[in-house]
């Protein structure tokens, strides 16, 4: 017997296991004909308030449900349930992001086969969630003017991966001393393709442009699913 050092080729992406699970989730969502939106932001940017306002605008047009991700508490799920919308809370403990397996597990006890839109509110964090595909069809990144104009420059990976960037709390722009044009330019620099909406979930300013866009995205999804039947 002898000890032989040996090099073995691996050529595997480290996130491969998550990616495979995300592909399975994506297939399941496609088969059920629903649009799945992964909503990401820093803590306190206003994800849940945005969702509340979006739900109020759209709940009569289509069937939707929400999966909430937080380290602790089911406070966010309670806020959504208070609107009469089904919500499921994932508490991650210490994990700073949702992953595709957590979503697959949630779906075991949270049936979503009758939905037009499933919103997944990720853990508030502008770093890690960018790396973990959940199987969503729509990636939405929310930032608020109160965070300052430089968030896209500081967290370019997160903003780069977004289909839609929502700039929230524009009613606070003046008080925060933030130039909305500068913030929009900074988003554009790291993501030339994203659709950008500036709005305030609290006052409702700019909300209808976003909810109309989302309504069309859901409708487009439904007709695409019907066409594939």
């Amino acid at each position, binding site marked *: 017997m002898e000890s032989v050092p040996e090099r073995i080729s691996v050529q595997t992406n480290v*996130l491969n296991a998550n990616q495979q699970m995300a592909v399975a989730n994506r297939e399941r969502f496609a088969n059920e004909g629903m649009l799945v939106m992964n909503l990401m932001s820093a803590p306190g940017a206003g994800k849940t308030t945005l969702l509340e306002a979006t739900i109020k605008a759209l709940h009569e047009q289509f069937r939707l449900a929400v999966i909430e991700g937080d380290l602790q508490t089911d406070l966010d799920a309670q806020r959504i349930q208070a609107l009469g919308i089904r919500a499921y809370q994932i508490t991650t403990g210490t994990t700073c992001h949702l992953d595709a397996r957590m979503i697959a597990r949630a779906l075991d006890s949270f049936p979503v086969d009758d939905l037009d839109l499933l919103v997944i509110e990720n853990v508030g964090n502008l770093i890690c969630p960018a*790396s973990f595909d959940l199987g969503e069809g729509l990636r939405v990144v929310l930032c608020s003017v109160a965070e300052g104009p430089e968030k896209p420059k500081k967290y*370019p990976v997160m903003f780069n991966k977004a289909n839609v960037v929502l700039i929230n709390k524009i009613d606070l722009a003046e008080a925060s001393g933030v130039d909305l044009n500068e913030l929009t330019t900074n988003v554009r620099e790291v993501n030339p393709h994203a659709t950008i909406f500036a709005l305030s979930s609290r006052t409702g300013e700019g909300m209808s442009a976003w909810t109309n866009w989302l309504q069309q995205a859901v409708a487009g999804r439904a007709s695409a699913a019907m066409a594939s039947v």
Partner: protein
Amino acid sequence: MHEISIAESIIRIAEAKAHEQNARSIQVIKLRLGTFTTIVAESLQFAFEIARRGTLSQDARLEIEIVPMVVRCVVCKASTQPSHGVCLICEQCGFPLEIVSGEELQIEYIEVDSEKEESPWSQYRSEFQFRPTS
């Protein structure tokens, strides 16, 4: 601090590969890490040292090759390496840039210690390898 879950994934993938080859232990794990990911090499090294305990990678070295971000204009095809922040709009012509590299998070290879019987074939192979080329 998602580097811990990344380190655990690296160890799981390496271990599965090592088991396939009946290896006793893993000595080296070679990783290509792009600069346009959310992973910090130093944090990953630290997380790896914690996560490797009690695994085949217990004594393994994590070799990280940093892959710089390279972007290219979709129109004028000019390639650049962003140095001060990331701007994905071409300075030359104003069109969007595409990312050519920098998003890598890939295990290239592992080096393992295997226990193997001496066989005529292995002897032949080592002779073959050391035969001078003329």
